[in-house]
């Protein structure tokens, strides 16, 4: 069943251009299963989003067995956790197979096992939520208590991702052993960075779920340490968003220059930025807990400072991307300061979708800096601003990059092509998503600044005048949010049509068909220092930073803990 690549790994020294031309049949099937699972979640999640829009505007009522917060929980879990995670693994599996060669039988077997474990956990968690045993939202803050099996299912999801991650790492280690002294291809390097960060980050949530939530939910212990459980959650919760973002960055660093017909701007800086994400994306979770007691101001501010550090690799990325645009444009003969803008391949949906993703990340990133600015967080914490923020971070830069990847990854995996009709549909889809998101997220940001809460079913709060301000004006209006949501749902359904066509309907691709390729740009690693790929240095510094940022606050929470909380089922 498993095809071994005829081609050996890269022979030449110290370069990292792509090797094997295609992924083998086994990896294709595995990646397609991941994508299929991801888009099933996407369908359910966006439908839940539409239901929320209607409910917040009192346009529909749900049947008695379903409430707003169940719908909200499913929306968050399916889109933020499931769509992203499974799509990411599809992308990483395909790219690792393409750049390091086909998987051996063990790697292939464990990748499948990981997929099924993660998928089983996801399906089980969804059943627990829909049957009303886990209306705790995807952050599952204690002492709201879901059924013990809900936490077990979450643990399975995480364990599944670990299994796939270690399978991919094993594939990489084998390549390194076969190519001593050679820097790995940039795609593989970035994959390993992302997975290293993910594995370390998950330790927090696994510790909380296994040692705190599960014994408590099954009644083996009576109470839970609430503040500790929150802190362990956010140890995981912030790097989680970088786990979504980094694969999008991989596409921006590696796919975009290929589409522009140029090389990666700087191999060493690309690698360095990913390493900085390993260092600074984890010891920052307290910036989600700035307005709560139990953590001294000093430690909050220290983690705020570290959060500011994690902006730096994004500044580097912004420069690399613009430089890639400008260099490619000038190679094509662009003149003047901004002549290169006109040389960008705007009619190539694979590029345009990624470009729009990047544009959305500008206000997205700026909003993130505001959120973490210590006391400024009081203005926006748990308001609709935050909802707007992650819809223009994970909901557009990440999700739209994954859509843009889908337009060629699915044809690449199914051996079909992207016809003109589907390409036009894809343009309509991307543009409608952008327009819908512009309306929805702008309204969310503005309403948040006016104090409208997040995660809340519609409420008029006894007609208090403050609430009237949430229905007045254009962007400061819940109806504008709804309008955006409806456009987004239309776009999401169009995407489902496109995915369906690419999977089953489009004609088989012919040789040399650009849309049926996996575009990875060349990256000149000849000037890249070798110590960048000494993982133990970077993981060592990451651990040191985590110990610096977390040892004292967590020790305090354990040693000086108040009496714990028993569970509450408020639904």
């Amino acid at each position, binding site marked *: 069943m498993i095809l071994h690549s005829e081609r050996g790994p890269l022979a030449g020294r110290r370069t990292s251009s792509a090797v094997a031309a295609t992924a083998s049949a086994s990896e294709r099937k595995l990646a397609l299963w991941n994508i299929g699972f991801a888009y099933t979640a996407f369908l359910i999640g966006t439908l839940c989003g539409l239901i929320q829009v209607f409910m917040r505007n009192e346009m529909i009522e749900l049947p008695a067995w379903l409430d707003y917060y169940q719908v909200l929980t499913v929306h968050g879990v399916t889109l933020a956790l499931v769509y992203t995670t499974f799509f990411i693994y599809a992308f990483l599996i395909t790219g690792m197979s393409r750049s390091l060669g086909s998987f051996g039988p063990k790697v292939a077997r464990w990748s499948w096992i990981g997929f099924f474990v993660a998928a089983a956990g996801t399906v089980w968690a969804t059943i627990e939520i829909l049957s009303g045993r886990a209306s705790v939202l995807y952050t599952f803050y204690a002492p709201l208590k879901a059924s013990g099996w809900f936490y077990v299912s979450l643990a399975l999801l995480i364990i599944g991702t670990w299994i796939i991650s270690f399978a991919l790492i094993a594939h990489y280690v084998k390549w390194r052993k076969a190519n001593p002294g050679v820097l790995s291809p940039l795609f593989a390097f970035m994959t390993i960075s992302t997975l290293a960060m993910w594995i370390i980050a998950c330790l927090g949530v696994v510790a909380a779920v296994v040692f705190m939530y599960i014994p408590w939910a099954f009644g083996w212990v009576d109470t839970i340490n609430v503040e500790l459980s929150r802190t362990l959650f956010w140890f995981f919760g912030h790097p989680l968003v970088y786990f979504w973002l980094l694969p999008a960055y991989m596409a921006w660093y590696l796919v975009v220059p290929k589409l522009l017909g140029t090389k990666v701007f700087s191999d060493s800086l690309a690698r360095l930025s990913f390493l900085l994400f390993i260092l600074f994306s984890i010891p920052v979770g307290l910036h989600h807990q700035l307005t709560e007691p139990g953590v001294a101001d000093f430690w909050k501010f220290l983690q705020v400072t570290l959060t500011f550090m994690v902006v730096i690799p994004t500044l580097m990325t912004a420069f690399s991307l*613009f430089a890639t645009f400008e260099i490619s444009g*000038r190679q094509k003969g662009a003149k003047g300061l901004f002549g290169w803008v006109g040389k960008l391949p705007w009619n190539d949906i694979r590029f345009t979708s990624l470009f729009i993703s990047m544009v959305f990340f500008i206000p997205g990133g700026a909003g993130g800096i*505001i959120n973490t600015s210590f006391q400024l967080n009081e203005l926006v914490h748990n308001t609709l601003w935050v909802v707007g923020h992650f819809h223009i971070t994970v909901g557009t830069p990440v999700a739209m990059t994954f859509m843009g990847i889908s337009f060629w990854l699915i044809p690449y995996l199914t051996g079909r092509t992207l016809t003109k009709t589907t390409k036009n549909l894809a343009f309509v889809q991307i543009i409608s998503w952008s327009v819908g998101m512009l309306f929805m997220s702008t309204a969310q940001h503005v309403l948040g600044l006016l104090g409208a809460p997040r995660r809340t079913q519609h409420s008029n709060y006894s007609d208090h005048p403050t609430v009237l301000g949430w229905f007045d004006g254009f962007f400061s209006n819940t109806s504008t949010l709804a309008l955006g949501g409806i456009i987004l749902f239309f776009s999401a359904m169009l995407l489902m049509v496109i995915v369906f066509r690419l999977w089953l309907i489009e004609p088989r691709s012919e040789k040399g068909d650009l849309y049926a390729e996996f575009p990875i740009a060349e990256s000149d690693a000849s000037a890249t220092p070798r110590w960048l790929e000494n993982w133990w240095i970077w993981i060592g510094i990451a651990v040191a930073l985590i110990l610096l940022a977390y040892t004292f606050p967590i020790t305090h929470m354990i040693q000086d803990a108040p009496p714990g909380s028993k569970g509450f089922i408020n639904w």
Partner: protein
Amino acid sequence: MKNKKNPHEADLRGTLISVLTVGILIAVMWFAVYAMYVAL
């Protein structure tokens, strides 16, 4: 193209102006929200 050989010597004036514009946008957003916070 001489730029192709070494991107570090490339003409990146447009890039510099673009990123600085992004930086200024970020600063404007930040100070706007900061002003709102201080006014509360």
